[in-house]
């Protein structure tokens, strides 16, 4: 996670000129994180593989016109997120309208679950069952929130790069991140709150 990628070690001129060896280095460098982000966002290994392949096919075609205004990593994330959204839209013909960002009550005091579960032991917090719960909870987020959360909190991108990869403003990225984090905190508080009750009753 949080690989520190710097563009300088890849030769942009060679990439733009269609140098295959240099492109292979680019693929080697970024394929792991592109696959991971697609898997976290879509929750399905086959879809993640499709996104991975399409991302690099599109990148290969578009590189001659790459202007370098964003980093290569951010540019690739952007292609991958667009591909992922296309897969979501294809597979969900009944796609619900994008959820209104301010139409829920997660940011209100009344909706707050106030169990302090931080004291649970690590093996409880990160059991395989808990991990599955974490994945499911993230996948339940509306896609507009999930994309920001996966890039910012799972991949560790800055707000600026997250916004750039999604083609949204930094303000929108921050608002969505807050909603996503609060929603997940709520889900986890209910889940771990139950573990806490079990532990105390033992």
């Amino acid at each position: 996670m949080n690989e520190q990628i710097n563009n300088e070690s890849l030769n942009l001129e060679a990439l733009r000129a269609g140098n295959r060896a240099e492109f292979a280095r680019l693929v080697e460098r970024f394929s792991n994180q592109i696959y991971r982000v697609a898997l976290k966002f879509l929750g399905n290994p086959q879809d993640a593989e499709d996104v991975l392949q399409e991302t690099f096919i599109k990148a290969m075609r578009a590189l001659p016109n790459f202007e370098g205004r964003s980093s290569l990593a951010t540019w690739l994330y952007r292609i991958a997120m667009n591909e992922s959204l296309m897969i979501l839209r294809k597979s969900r013909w009944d796609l619900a309208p994008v959820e209104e960002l301010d139409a829920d009550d997660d940011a209100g005091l009344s909706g707050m679950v106030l169990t302090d579960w931080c004291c649970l032991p690590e093996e409880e917090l990160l059991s395989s069952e808990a991990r599955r719960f974490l994945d499911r909870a993230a996948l339940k987020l509306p896609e507009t929130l999930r994309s920001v959360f996966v890039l910012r909190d799972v991949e560790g991108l800055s707000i600026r790069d997250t916004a750039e990869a999604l083609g949204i403003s930094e303000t929108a990225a921050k608002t969505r991140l807050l909603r996503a984090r609060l929603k997940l905190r709520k889900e986890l508080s209910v889940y771990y709150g139950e573990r806490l009750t079990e532990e105390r009753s033992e």
Partner: protein
Amino acid sequence: MNEERHCQQLIETISDYIDGELDSGLCVELERHLSECNNCQVVVNTLRKTIELYKDPSDGDVLPDEVRQRLFYRLHLEDFLKS
């Protein structure tokens, strides 16, 4: 009433606060509130923990070797496949 307003303000700025990006004046004010408000302490602690759990690097999502190989073949780069 005033404290309640602080709780609401804290929740609205909690992401920036946790990321250390909050304006310093506001930060001091909220930390004072935090030191007196148990509910907000719980929200901050559990939110921090939530983010930490999702960042956990032992969660092993790495590219499976066969997926990597298929990618190189698809891109006609198989001559660059290193084992």
